[in-house]
């Protein structure tokens, strides 16, 4: 499954990819942003940072049984600080379609486009 996000900054594009990650599991508007989890990761290479970010989220989703629907990210000098808001999986309300295994390095790209916007994308294994 491929995820792609656009934003005016790299951080915004990363937020959009994270929303797409939730959308592979359930409808975004069914997830209430009630509970906050803070996540940070660090990597000089922006593409590897994207994979780290998604894998950190996947880990939190798996171990806390959470789905996230709101993100706030700052990226500075290869360090990503994020807050993610969501709620516990409710099987009858969220009807989760798939469990995400991990983010891959396939079709991985983080780049600023000609119009100045940022694109962030990769393929996740479900």
């Amino acid at each position: 499954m491929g995820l792609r996000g656009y934003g005016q900054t790299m951080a915004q594009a990363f937020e959009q990819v994270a929303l797409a990650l939730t959308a592979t599991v359930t409808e975004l508007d069914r997830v209430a942003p009630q509970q906050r989890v803070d996540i940070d990761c660090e990597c000089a290479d922006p593409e590897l940072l994207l994979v780290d970010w998604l894998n950190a989220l996947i880990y939190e989703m798996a171990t806390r049984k959470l789905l996230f629907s709101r993100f706030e990210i700052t990226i500075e000098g290869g360090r990503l600080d994020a807050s993610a808001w969501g709620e516990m999986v409710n099987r009858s309300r969220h009807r989760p379609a798939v469990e995400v295994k991990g983010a891959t390095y396939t079709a991985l790209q983080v780049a600023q486009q000609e119009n100045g916007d940022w694109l962030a994308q990769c393929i996740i294994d479900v």
Partner: protein
Amino acid sequence: MSQEYPLQRESEFSWRIDPSGKMRVPGIIYADETLIREMDDKVFEQLCNVASLPGIVQAAYAMPDAHWGYGFPIGGVAAFDPDLGGVVSAGGVGFDISCGVRALRTGLSIEEIEPVKKQLVDALFRQVPVGVGSTGRIHLNDKGMTAMLKGGARWAVEQGFGEPGDLERIEEKGCMAGADPGEVSARARKRQQDEMGTLGSGNHYLEVQRVAEIYDPRIATAFGLRENDAVVFIHCGSRGLGHQIGTEFLKYMVLVASRHGIELPDRELACAPINSELGQAYLGAMRAGINCALANRQIITHLTRQVFADVLPKADLTLIFDVSHNTCKLESHPVAGRQRKLYVHRKGATRAFGPGNPEIPETLRAVGQPVLIGGSMGTESHILAGSEQGAGLSFNSACHGAGRAMSRHRATKLWRGRSVVDELAERGILIRSPSMRGVAEEAPGAYKDVRAVVDAAEKAGLAKKVARMEPRLCIKG
């Protein structure tokens, strides 16, 4: 047919890409003309990338169900010699370490199942945890986790899940040697703590099937299969633990590849020399992941037996076999007339040892190893047997399933989960799933024709067809 890759037809069911550029060995694809024509060019690109990895021996192979994967094609096989700088690749095994299929006889005919099938499918759906957010009833502390990672299905049997006799019918006799639980991180352990004995989601399932057709009566008898028998297929893997091991080692291997002098054609092919600290650490962790998958399928077998004991007390569930199709294993294979110890990666490919191989349980050795091919729900599954020629063709490997023909996204545009369930119910096939979108993504039409895949595998000589099964009941995430 590929425009970009020069495929040479070697025989009716075998195609070759000669080495060019950085390729060290040729790429070989086993398929009929239709399957080859429908294969994405990405399969050939990925196969050529695999063929360029250090220490690869003989060829990079693609099975008839090959499709575009991450790094390796799914349906890919590659063997590496540690003494020639050969590598082990976390991407070459994949996230779902030791994902595989277990098949069980039930001792019942399908006619005995039919009158209680609704009760049976509902009881299975209640008892076997399936889908996102489901948890098992076993919660392992760190000591228990370590024992499980070391012992695999043998550990599960010691804990009371199943019978000692089950172990004979599992690859590695249910316990992968060389597992190093010390290489399995706290995060991987945490991801697994509530997931023992769970099926997972995606294409994982538990099915009750009818033996619809016997192709080879002699081998079918040896496997204990008769037409109209009811059998159980369980398809799942190493759950969160395997996913986390894959995630972590993939990253380590990406970061240090250049330090090992490895030029990666695709980051997803991240690998490390077998004879390196990282290579050995991964092998130790990956083997622990294999044990996790074997223990998981053993616990699910136990739950399935409990359900049958309640609903159909006459049932006697015994193992036909248990195969893993995402692994890297040290095996001895003849290459140019000489036996060599090689690390064989099979990513979405099933080991298929031929008759006489000492790794096969004695009771099956005369006929070859059972090769279990899970189809999509609503179509069919197959049991094959390893062939004598397989050794020289693909390091004794065959296909593993139908292989996806389209993306999940496209499938949800074409089908609705509810109507897939209703249409299958009209054909007497009962599906239970917590997610209708999940069902739509797994609709039978989203997969290749599994019969074409097994026909090509047989005609290419990789394995022999033994029996065809049709699903009657299916629970899936």
